[in-house]
């Protein structure tokens, strides 16, 4: 088994685990961490699969993942601003438990 495939499979598992966590967890901060795990898993798949059996790394895949990491931190930081403000105004760390209105 090539290292690329190994990490890609690990990434796939992380994706599935993170998604399950995303569906089950209710605490906003935990959901955010689950989202980041899903992202990391996706990035591992992207780079792992782009690596050829001879071990040559693919600069394009790496550039894509670098873009992905920056998008992820932007989304994470934005989500944190939103949830901290939500917490300040309502004292709650989760969204469910009340109607939309």
């Amino acid at each position, binding site marked *: 088994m090539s290292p690329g495939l190994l990490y890609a499979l690990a990434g796939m598992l992380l994706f599935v685990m993170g998604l399950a966590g995303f569906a*089950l967890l209710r605490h906003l901060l935990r959901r955010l961490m689950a989202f980041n795990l899903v992202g990391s898993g996706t990035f591992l798949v992207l780079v792992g699969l782009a690596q050829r059996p001879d071990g040559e790394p693919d600069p394009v895949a790496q550039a894509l993942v670098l873009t992905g990491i920056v998008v992820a931190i*932007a989304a994470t930081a934005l989500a944190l*601003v939103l949830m901290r403000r939500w917490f300040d105004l309502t004292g709650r760390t989760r969204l469910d438990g009340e109607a939309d209105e």
Partner: protein
Amino acid sequence: MKAGVVTVLALLLGGILAPVVVAVASADPGTSLHTLVQTRLEASGVEHPVTAVLLNFRAYDTLLEIGVLVVAGITGMSLSRAGARAEPELRSTNTLLHALARWFVPLMLLLAAWLLWAGSHRPGGAFQAGAVLAAAGVMMRLTGLPTAWIAPGPMLRLGLSAGFSVFLLVAAVGALTGRAFLAYPPLLSGPLILVIETLLTLSIGMILLGLYVAAAQRDGADE
């Protein structure tokens, strides 16, 4: 109940995806972008292939991605209303941290500059450097060093959009001089990429730091 259903679905998804991942890994795509990057590397103006892809071959992705960062920064600012600026509780009184910060902040600034410079010919670049800058800012903030410049205001707005603006201008100049949008003038691509990266570093650092500060502000309930 719900946990069980989700677990079963997750196992199912994993069971479907695992053979797909294995199949893709063993497949041989006819084309390889890797060799294409190598053959065109010289024309890109930088020696490091990842930087060449990010700032030249696929610069449009990067432009939009910086846009995503700026949007996050804007939204952060829009939610941190005027008022609570320098909050005393944010500062740590830990003297060890203070001592560390006096050494660390200049070191981190140096590291950021090195990462930025390295990006043209070896691993490193604007994103890593910007993140280090932001971390230096976080440390300054934690230890109570002056950080008034990061409060929402004209300075911050200018700073967080500077890198994006210069990138966009260079892109437009390409079109105005008869080439495609985002095409660099043939001989200037190296220096232009360095200029763009320098300003991007500053902007990325400011955006990330600005979001940190915006998250740390609170008002309303306390006042």
